[in-house]
């Protein structure tokens, strides 16, 4: 993450500078373990940089748990950033305190995901929508009441609803109320945190249209967090794809959807069901689950599941299934390294009793049992499993990386000791950026590799 070969602001050379509203630079949000002792933090957002231009809708997509909601919440200061900065019209809002923060909060608001949970059921609609105005002492109480009524009208409810309770409304209407509350203070920037994912499909379109109309009317800038890709394609000007706290690819929506550059984007888009039964492109199935964000992999965050992982030349032709096994073995060794063995377990092991760790040999059998593994590979693998069996996980991992590791696992191809991470490569004229080693001239492009390996 430390190096940027491509400029992160795609307007730095030549092109007319777009009006940037929010500038995020190397933002990190870590959750502390909660224990009293020094725990490893959960790296929910692990160093992201991007810009949001005035008046645009930037989509933020990714699997659940990839940190997109945390990123959105950090942008409006519901979470404290651990590091990095968020420049909002040039002011770093991560360091705002007290009154400055209070004043700034007018400018940035959020629409929440769950309309059932975002409205206080004990208050009337009027009180809910009016509360931001009360907090900011906006004009007189009578003016506030008027404003709330016009806001209700604006979002497609009627002013008579002022004295109703949230109970009495459907999910879509509740979301409209939430939107009215968000608009109360006339913000410039709104984080939409999956605003339609909890709604019926029939209602989703209405809310999306409402959001689009409002954007036009009030010159709003949106950060649209979603996992529904078709909605994103419909509403967003640009899209950022997030995985495990990192932005994998960011660029104009259509371009990104039609010609994805990053392997993760490929995989994500291939998950969209196609109405055409004869469509040629195979689905890319990702194996396993995303890694624990407390222990992200070294190197590229996507390396553990990447379908086009760079392989060392000497093993390039190894069977895909064997590679899967090797990746699985790596994960298991990493897992074993983290697991603290209790004294009881050490004693049991000493006396040859069963422990909750399956022996590494069983694991090996499970992974490679019915595969034809070439002899020399098998020999290396046995060495590795032996080391792991003796609880020398570090050594086993080093050996594994030396033999099968590549730049994706953080192994420096130039022989350096520091783990390397991918860089952002500019992959099109529009300034689209992708976070992958495949864009380096030394390696083949993603699309060709996918075709090769499938």
């Amino acid at each position: 993450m430390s190096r940027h070969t491509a400029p992160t602001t795609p307007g730095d050379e030549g092109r007319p500078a777009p009006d940037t509203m929010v500038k995020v630079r190397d933002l990190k949000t870590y959750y502390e373990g909660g224990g009293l002792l020094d725990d490893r933090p959960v790296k929910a957002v692990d160093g992201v940089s991007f810009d949001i231009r005035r008046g645009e809708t930037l989509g933020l997509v990714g699997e659940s748990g990839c940190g997109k909601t945390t990123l959105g919440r950090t942008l409006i200061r519901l979470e404290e950033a651990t590091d990095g900065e968020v420049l909002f019209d040039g002011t770093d809002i991560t360091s705002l305190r007290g009154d400055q923060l209070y004043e700034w909060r007018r400018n940035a608001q959020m629409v929440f995901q769950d309309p059932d949970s975002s409205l206080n059921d004990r208050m009337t609609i009027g009180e809910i929508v009016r509360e931001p105005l009360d907090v900011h002492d906006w004009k007189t109480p009578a003016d506030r009441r008027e404003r709330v009524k016009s806001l209700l009208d604006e979002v497609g409810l009627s002013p008579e609803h002022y004295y109703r309770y949230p109970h009495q409304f459907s999910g879509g209407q509740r979301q409209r109320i939430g939107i009215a509350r968000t608009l109360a203070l006339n913000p410039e920037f709104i984080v939409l945190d999956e605003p339609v994912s909890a709604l019926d499909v029939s209602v989703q379109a209405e809310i999306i249209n409402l959001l689009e109309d409002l954007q036009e009317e009030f010159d709003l800038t949106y950060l649209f967090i979603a996992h529904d890709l078709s909605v994103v394609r419909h509403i967003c000007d640009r899209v950022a794809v997030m995985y495990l706290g990192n932005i994998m690819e960011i660029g104009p929506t259509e371009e990104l959807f039609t010609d994805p550059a990053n392997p993760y984007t490929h995989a994500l888009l291939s998950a969209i069901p196609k109405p055409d039964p004869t469509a040629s492109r195979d689905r890319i199935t990702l194996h396993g689950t995303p890694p624990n964000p407390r222990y992200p992999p070294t190197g590229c965050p996507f390396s553990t599941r990447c379908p086009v992982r760079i392989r060392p030349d000497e093993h390039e032709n190894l069977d895909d299934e064997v590679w899967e096994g090797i990746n699985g073995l790596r994960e298991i060794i990493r897992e074993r390294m983290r697991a603290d063995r209790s004294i009881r377990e050490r004693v049991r092991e000493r006396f040859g009793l069963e422990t909750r760790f399956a022996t590494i040999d069983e694991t090996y059998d499970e992974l490679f049992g019915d595969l034809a593994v070439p002899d020399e590979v098998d020999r290396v693998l046995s060495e590795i499993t032996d080391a792991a069996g003796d609880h020398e996980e570090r050594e086993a991992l080093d050996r594994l990386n030396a033999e099968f590791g590549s730049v994706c696992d953080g192994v420096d191809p130039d022989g350096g000791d520091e783990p390397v991470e991918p860089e952002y490569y500019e992959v099109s004229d529009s300034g689209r950026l992708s976070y992958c080693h495949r864009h380096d001239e030394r390696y083949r492009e993603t699309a060709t590799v996918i075709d090769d390996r499938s």
Partner: protein
Amino acid sequence: MSTTQSDSTDGLEEPDDDKLFRDRVRENPRPAMAWLAGLAFLLLLEIGRVFAGVGQAFGIVGFTVELLASVPTSVGDNVAGTLGSAAGFVATAVTAVLMAFAVTVPVAGSVPDGAVDVLGLDLSRRGRRWAKRAELTFVLVAAAGLVAYTPVGGAFSALIGAITGGVDALAASLPSITSRDLIPNTGHRLPEGGWEGTFLGLSPATAWAIRTGLVFAYATTALVWLWRGFDVYRTHYRLADWTPRDDTVRRFRNNYWGLFGFAIVFLFVVMALWAPAVSPVEAQHNIYEPNSHEFQYLSEDGEVTSTTHVFANLQSRSDGQNTIGPMSYDDYDRWAPLGTTNRGQDMMTHLSYGARTSLVIGLTAIGLGALIAVVLSLLSSYYKGVTDIVTVMASDTIQAVPALLLIMLVSVVFQEANHPIAQPLDGGLLLALIFAFAYWPGMWRSIRGPSLQVSEQEWVDAAKSYGQTPLQTMRKHMAPYIAGYILIYGSLLIGAVIISTAALTFLGLGINPPTPEWGRLIDGGQSYVATDSWHVATIPGIAIVLVVIAFNALGDAIRDAIDPEADVDESEAAATGGGA
């Protein structure tokens, strides 16, 4: 109970809609006027008692203020004892300022901005908040200093004395329809038959029955009138056509077990509030100072003679050999609707004043404990982290000591030391405070889950996102959700407090004589259960059982009423909301 609850939540939620409400009343004043007239009429009927109540409230406030006012000096004295008088003075001042500051925090929000603008400082929002608190603290401390250290204090206490004296005088002189003066039931037989000194010359039993019946009729009317007030508000002045509270009320009305609990609790409370009216003899005469009050009766030799209560009580004991049972007169023409106690005092008087004691202890203990529990649960669930851990440790420490043992230990220590807080109610207040201290961890534990849950709701985040202050967020967005739970646990625990008080008194540890207490009655009567004097222990025993069951039933009913998911028939609410 349900009406008071909804009233209080009303106040919570609509602080600045007052003007609107006033406008609405002005537009359509008839229903409100009619209701208010009815209320005024009801109050007027009992005006003497209303003033007596006000006087008593003054007394309680005065006692609390005095107790709090003595804290800084007592802290100062303790410090002065070890570090010298200068340090003692500083400690007094610091304690006073801190206490004054603590008082201002919840109040400062309602002070208008103008109060700070006078200072002419350019303050930020936060600065303004603190300036308000500082200003209020200064005013409070200055006022307290004036009262404590200057001649103004003398004038001030004279003023207070005049006001309380005035209220007391009014209470004594104004009539009320349930008063003893209007319907007297103490008198004596005449040698030629008939009664002297009773209401219309009726027998004391009839006079007492009339007065007691009047009390309950009055109380029921008042309750119905309050309910009507809610109804009037709902039909004429409320802007919302439906609120969640309507459902709560409807569910409560259909819960017969809960209504039974409510009825018994109502009886108990009425008996406690109107104790002077429902007791056949005056407690002051019969229980507190039997030596100094004489009364007349028709002696066996046919002459009207005079005697003191202490002597008459001695002859009227229900102790196995001698029994004055329920619904009978003793030898001194005194009507004893529930018989007499083992010490010859009137059981009904004892029971009604005992109800007062129990109610005061129960409400004080639960009120205080619930307050601590709610405040701590709000703080610990909003801030989490260290605040939470400290609260957990504090509550666990208290819970680690067996409650009854803790209560006994502390009460003995304070009573032996003759501490001022052991004086009121002969140890009753002390007991209430100890109960509050021993029971808040339990209540806090039971509302901890709900408050953590509500603190995770997105509306709390939303409030944070537009800059709502933590205090307001807790009050508006979290407290209403915990209120239901604390109401339930509070009403369940009130039964426990009543029974524990009785148990301690039974053991001779709780409340000392002469303050009437049910536990002492049971203690006194326990050896006569198998004799003619069975009623001495049985009647208060049944009363305790009933009251505790009733509070539990009420608590259960409140829980069911508050919980929307307890509703099987949702169609009604759905239909109302359908048009929206």
